[in-house]
């Protein structure tokens, strides 16, 4: 009996053989041929069995990965349809934007900067410091309209109506030279040549050459007369005529990129005069000395005013 034979010998050698501590040949020498064949098959079967019983989870991840890489035909159709839809709508949106907004041209100036902008029809626009204009380039020939925030001088070529929109009102001309200064609560239009129509929320005016109109805080003042042929700021000098000092201070700030603290002075004091754009010292002397206001620089670019 083989079994008896197996028992009579050492009683751990099968365990050692299974673990690889005993070689096949050694086992073969100890037991019968038939037993040997049976145990070899048993060992193979045990290996396979543990592999067959192993978790299939890893394979599932591999399957998912392969599916993702393959992108099944069903999926592909769907995603393709989606992406075409998305691409189309992006195109449409971009197209709409380019029609409605992309041709709007904007020009901007920063502190102390003036900029001369020739428009398509030959009109000249000179932008004073801290000002912005924007207009629609494509439709310019038929529709001469632009939006202004700040101050600009216009030398308009003759043609269709030319309109300047500001937050304070609009200025309409046919062909002329005029200056518009519009900030939040200050609106000043001066006509130098031709005829200028000014329309605000509350009133309408026709300006003849040398006439000007000004609105401060929505109250229009008397039309006044200027002797100048064009605004002085074009030549590097800001000129004011009976303007509350606070707008002069604002102009100084925009021109020189400084901060002026006017808390301790009366900023409604009326000022007439001008200041140069290239010399801060002279500008301060001409504006504030005349009004008996002293000034000193508390910090860099911060100036405090007092009497």
């Amino acid at each position, binding site marked *: 009996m083989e*079994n008896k034979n*197996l*028992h009579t010998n050492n*009683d*751990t*050698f*099968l*365990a*050692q053989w*299974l*673990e690889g501590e005993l070689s096949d040949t050694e086992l073969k020498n100890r037991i019968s041929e*038939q*037993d040997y*064949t*049976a*145990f*070899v*098959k*048993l060992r*193979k*079967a*045990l290996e*396979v*069995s*543990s*592999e*067959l*019983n192993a978790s*299939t989870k890893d*394979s*599932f991840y*591999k*399957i998912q990965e*392969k*599916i993702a890489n*393959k992108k*099944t*035909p*069903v999926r592909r159709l769907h995603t393709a349809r989606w992406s075409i839809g998305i691409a189309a709508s992006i195109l449409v949106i971009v197209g709409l934007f380019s029609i409605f907004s992309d041709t709007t041209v904007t020009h901007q100036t920063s502190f102390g900067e003036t900029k001369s902008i020739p428009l398509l029809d030959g009109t000249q626009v000179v932008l004073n410091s801290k000002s912005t204009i924007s207009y629609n380039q494509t439709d310019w020939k038929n529709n001469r309209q632009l939006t202004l925030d700040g101050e600009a001088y216009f030398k308009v070529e003759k043609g269709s109506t030319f309109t300047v929109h500001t937050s304070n009102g609009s200025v309409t001309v046919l062909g002329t030279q005029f200056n518009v200064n519009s900030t939040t609560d200050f609106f000043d239009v001066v006509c130098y040549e031709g005829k200028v129509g000014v329309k605000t929320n509350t009133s309408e005016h026709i300006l003849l050459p040398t006439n000007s109109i000004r609105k401060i805080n929505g109250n229009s003042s008397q039309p006044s007369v200027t002797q100048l042929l064009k605004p002085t700021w074009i030549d590097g000098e800001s000129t004011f005529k009976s303007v509350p000092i606070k707008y002069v201070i604002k102009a100084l700030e925009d021109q020189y990129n400084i901060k002026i603290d006017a808390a301790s002075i009366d900023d409604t004091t009326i000022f007439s005069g001008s200041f140069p754009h290239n010399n801060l010292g002279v500008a301060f002397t001409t504006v504030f000395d005349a009004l008996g206001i002293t000034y000193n620089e508390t910090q860099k670019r911060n100036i405090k005013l007092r009497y």
Partner: protein
Amino acid sequence: MAKDNCNVCESKVFEAIYNTYAKDIRRFLFYKTQDVDKAEDILQEVFIKLWENCSKVDYHKVKSYVYSIANNMFLNEKKHEKVVLNFNNNNGKFDTNESPEYILLEKEFMEKLENTISALPEKQREVFLLNRIEKKKYKEIALHLDISVKAVEKRMHQALLVMRKEIGNV
């Protein structure tokens, strides 16, 4: 599985189907191929195919469907092997990888073996499973169970003897 209106294309349903049948299919494929790695490969292909055709498969017939694919894929594999074999023969490069002592593991044999393992005496089974399933060395098992290595080896030896007796002569 009793739920109606189950769509195979839903990834949760798909995963559930996989969890239900994957092991059985792998086994099924192993008995045919006698190769665990090949069975694993075909198993993956089977479920990829199921996913690709998920909309055409009735949930209630999914079991027979996956077995059919598995079988077909196995046959395709065999056909391909024959082509490779022929090619090698004609080119004079034929070289068999099969060892002379080729061992065929039939379904009946495997089932008998597995039943025997689960019927082992508790002490032998514990050691046996720790070694075969958890892949622990005898030393580790001895430490784990607080017995000598010799005792572990004795139990393994006994377990193998029991199995030898149960499966009979081959």
